[in-house]
């Protein structure tokens, strides 16, 4: 029965400001993939197709959590696509897996923070030595 457009609930956060962030993630990936030649042209196109819906969705969906999680999903998606390329050395596969675990942990931590404020989540990190 509801035909009246329902505005997304306001969170007070300017989500559209993140669009260039996502574009940056996509462009970063494409920058390093396109020099590979014609073999990666289809890969670049598939990445673009994967990222464009994300850009279009920002600011139109009521679930802001979905948008942020998609940033990690984009990282995971790009790495998954890279991992599927034939002939990757074992060291690169291991690096891809490492970053994927990092993105997964980032997602898990993000979701965990939905259950309540935890000051331990904001304690300083130390440098990587």
């Amino acid at each position, binding site marked *: 029965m*509801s035909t009246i457009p329902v505005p997304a609930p306001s*969170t007070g956060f300017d989500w559209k400001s993140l669009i260039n962030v996502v574009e940056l993630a996509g462009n970063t990936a494409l920058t390093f993939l396109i020099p590979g030649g014609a073999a990666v042209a289809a890969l670049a196109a598939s990445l673009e197709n994967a990222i464009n819906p994300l850009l279009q969705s920002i600011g139109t969906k009521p679930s802001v959590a979905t948008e942020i999680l998609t940033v990690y999903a984009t990282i995971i998606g790009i790495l998954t696509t890279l991992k599927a390329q034939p002939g990757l050395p074992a060291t690169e596969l291991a690096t891809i*897996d490492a970053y994927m675990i*990092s993105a997964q942990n980032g997602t*898990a931590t993000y979701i965990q923070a939905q259950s309540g404020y935890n000051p331990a989540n904001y304690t300083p990190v130390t440098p*990587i030595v």
Partner: protein
Amino acid sequence: MKLRDKNALHFFLIAAAFIVMFTPDIVGCATATTPAVPLAPGYINSADQTMGQILSGARGFYSTVQCETQGLNWSQATNLCVADPNITTPLVLSTTTKAVFNDFGVSLNATNQVYLAYHAGTATQAAAQAAVTALQAKQNALPIVSGVTQ
């Protein structure tokens, strides 16, 4: 009670039941409101919660990379690096990549300070949002893909 009174009573009861049955839909169509997203305990408002979640995620991401350089995984429960059978070799970061990640860590710490000030009511939401957005940009510019394809 007269017959006419009984009919009137029946009509009234049926009408009342009709109203009770269909009022929610009628009201729903008229207002078309969206249920408010519940605020998790401890956050001061939804923007506080969203920024808190983003920063928590960023911390989990950075901490995991840090632990992986030691061949370990990061435990959210203990906030420590722990052994993980899925991680068999340390993640090797080039000098350049390590510097970029460490710069991200410094920015994460600085952003957390602005966020904590906002959470405590001593910084504006605009300041916190600007810091979080800048950190997100820095996180997405991390040389993850280049590190793989170099």
